[in-house]
């Protein structure tokens, strides 16, 4: 991809268990802070022994006013993050937020929330709540952002699991390159709800507090959050935070042993190809590493293969805010923008095994000299995605 086709990132907005200000969150990550808490026992008694990367802010209060009653938690998070991003973009950009601003959002939901479930159990139509039904449509959060911010551009909801956030960013870039939009807000949102938490727990994917998430030990901690990035094709250079340079996807239709790296390798190579870069030019890696033994092994093998055992400095953020499912890739991308700007990587928490050094991980802050950063997303279904960002050129010291 030539530079003229590269798409600029002109704003970031992030909500995680660590807070709602991306720069503050990056500082907290640099300080090694963890955003973990328990569900109140009365909400989820069976899962009260597990930690989660929960957003504990009062979302409706932060959004202010009335009219949020039927919104899902994801809808609230998406609207809050969208509003924050609009405020940031409006202060830095002279381009109008017009009819050619669009949304591309990764998201999935679970329809069997208690009120709907009760209606089915009782077979009583009077128990079905029409506004709730509408809010449970998978495209509701993206639509709610558009309604709130009056965006009339293209609108996409990607529901492809763990790779959805990075796919949403690539789709947004494609809309800009194709002339379908002047500006896109792109990213992903994920809420922890009862069913998702229980699902993770039932497949024994969640961890206990004693064996916290680690790239080399099994078990994840579920998290939630939302990240949106403002993308533009022809912004004023002073507003550019970073460039989106390349994207790749991988899928292995015939997986071999658990930990098969084929999909991840294909994704990284696809992103490098689209960027016109060699592995040696990548200066930092944001791993998908969630603590799932098979996925982490696959990712590690793929990186070692592509980088010939010279994996650049890397970081796994999920020790700090958990596995945020659809939103994980986009949240990492938002932090990668700041890592490229400040030329440093936060520490990876809970590292227990010495062999992880070969993946470029460290339990301390790492200074980097990176023009390009690679962001990974790994799905449980033999699917992977990779995104490459380029620094804007402004380089404050870490």
């Amino acid at each position, binding site marked *: 991809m030539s530079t003229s086709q590269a798409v600029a990132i002109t704003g970031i907005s992030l909500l995680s268990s660590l807070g709602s200000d991306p720069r503050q969150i990056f500082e907290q990550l640099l300080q090694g802070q963890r955003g973990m808490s328990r569900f109140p026992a009365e909400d989820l008694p069976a899962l009260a022994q597990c930690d989660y990367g929960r957003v504990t802010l009062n979302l409706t209060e932060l959004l202010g006013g009335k009219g949020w009653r039927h919104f899902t938690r994801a809808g609230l998070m998406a609207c809050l993050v969208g509003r924050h991003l609009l405020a940031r973009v409006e202060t830095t950009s002279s381009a109008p937020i017009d009819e050619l601003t669009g949304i591309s959002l990764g998201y999935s939901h679970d329809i069997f929330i208690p009120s709907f479930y009760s209606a089915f159990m009782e077979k009583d139509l009077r128990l079905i709540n029409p506004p709730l*039904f509408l809010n449970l449509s998978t495209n509701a959060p993206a*639509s709610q952002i558009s*309604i709130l911010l009056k965006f*009339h551009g293209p*609108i996409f909801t990607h529901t492809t699991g763990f790779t959805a956030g990075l796919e949403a960013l690539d*789709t947004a870039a494609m809309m800009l390159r194709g002339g379908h939009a002047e500006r896109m807000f792109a990213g992903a949102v994920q809420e922890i709800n009862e069913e998702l938490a229980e699902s993770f727990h039932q497949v024994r994917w969640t961890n206990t507090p004693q064996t916290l998430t680690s790239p080399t030990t099994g078990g994840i901690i579920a998290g939630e959050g939302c990240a949106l990035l403002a993308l533009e094709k022809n912004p004023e250079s002073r507003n550019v935070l970073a460039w989106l340079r390349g994207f790749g996807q991988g899928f292995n239709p015939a997986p071999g042993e658990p930990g098969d790296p084929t999909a991840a390798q294909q994704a990284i190579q696809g992103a490098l190809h689209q960027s016109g870069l060699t592995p040696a030019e990548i200066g930092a890696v944001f791993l998908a590493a969630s603590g799932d033994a098979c996925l982490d092994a696959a990712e590690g093998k793929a990186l070692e293969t592509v980088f010939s055992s010279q994996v650049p400095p890397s970081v796994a953020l999920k020790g700090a805010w958990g596995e945020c499912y659809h939103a994980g890739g986009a949240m990492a991308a938002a932090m990668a923008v700041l890592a490229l700007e400040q030329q440093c990587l936060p520490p990876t928490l809970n590292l227990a095994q010495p062999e992880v050094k070969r993946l470029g991980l460290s339990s301390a802050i790492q200074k980097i000299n990176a023009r390009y950063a690679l962001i990974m997303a790994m799905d449980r279904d033999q*699917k992977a995605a990779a995104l490459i960002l380029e620094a804007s050129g402004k380089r404050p010291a870490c």
Partner: protein
Amino acid sequence: MHDVYVTGAGILTSIGHGCVTFWQALTRGDSGVGAVTRFDSGWFPVQIAAEIKNFPNISPYCPAAESSLRLSARLTLAAAREALNQAGLLSPEGVCTLPSTGLLIGSNKGDLWDIEQQRWRTQQSLLPSHAKKITAQILLTDNTYYGVLPRVAEHLRLTGPQHLITNACSAGAYTLALGAEQIRQGQASVVLCGGVDVLNESIYAGFSSLRSLAPERCQPFDLHRQGLVLGEAAAMLVLESKASCQARGIQPLAALAGWGMSCDAHHLSAPHPEGKGTILALQRALKNACLTPGRIDCLVAHGTGTIGNDRMEAQAFRTIFGEAAPPVTAPKSMLGHSIGAASAVEALVAALITQNDLIPPTINFETPDPECPIDCVPNQVRKKIIRACQTNASSFGGNNVSLIFTKPSPHAF
């Protein structure tokens, strides 16, 4: 910039399986509407739908593995194989001969019907709390509600770009727009795009609670229309670059000349009163195809049969095309509303209209509505030379998309 062509199509609907059977039934004006059989509909005031009938439980390909797949994946595989076969890309084993082919599926609720069935079965033998836990386990072990994408990719042996788009009722056409954009920008040479949705109790309950369901039949643009009829379908199209068509010696069915997308930014369920989003999507598609409204010879409407949607859509058509608006056909009068699949079905219909110079009728049309001043091809198929056919799709949340199909240039192939 790469031109985009349709080189294969496959479909399963309530009026027929396969493009040939489907097209014959559609141009005859067959209705696929009947009593609901997918679930116990006794607790709903309306109990009709347009269901797929006689779909075999046993797959001719890899029967042991495929017969256990969820229904949405089996339907999608059948439609995809028909499309790939027509495009000359299907092996005798039922896999795609070009593994780098992209796969984009639009769906509203994915595998929800199967999950409901499992839930009801567990409910009969377990306490509700246990049933919930078991369902939770089902969700993650088959990739939540949306296992259709990886399962179809796995069984067709596809490794190219993959997307599952869940833009509610316009999801299917959104996959075509995104797939076409991938080809135009040179990121793919062949993509398999479309939509699938299986009738399920949750969605039926939702629309029932909104009082949107027609009691007997779907009557788009009729003065006495009473709402929509839910349906189910799978429709897949092979999109291909001109260079790939030429290299493989394939004659396309149609060209996908342009696409436009928009959001109403108005309300989660009500359409914009002036049809702003629909007008924007139609205009953007025309601009993208470098065509003027006068070049469009037929419109395939979203035409749900609801009061508000049909009025808004007809007014949007008048705004763009004026009093000389081209004929408008509404396939949902026959097929019902297959939600995430509907706009892919209508895209396939538009491609067939362009290829065959025939416009299927809007059935059940009896009384013109002064607020819908359009020629909706009432009840009888119509012959007309079609240079370009434009679709329109909308959804909850006001996610609009329009596609324009034209005849392939005779000199290009």
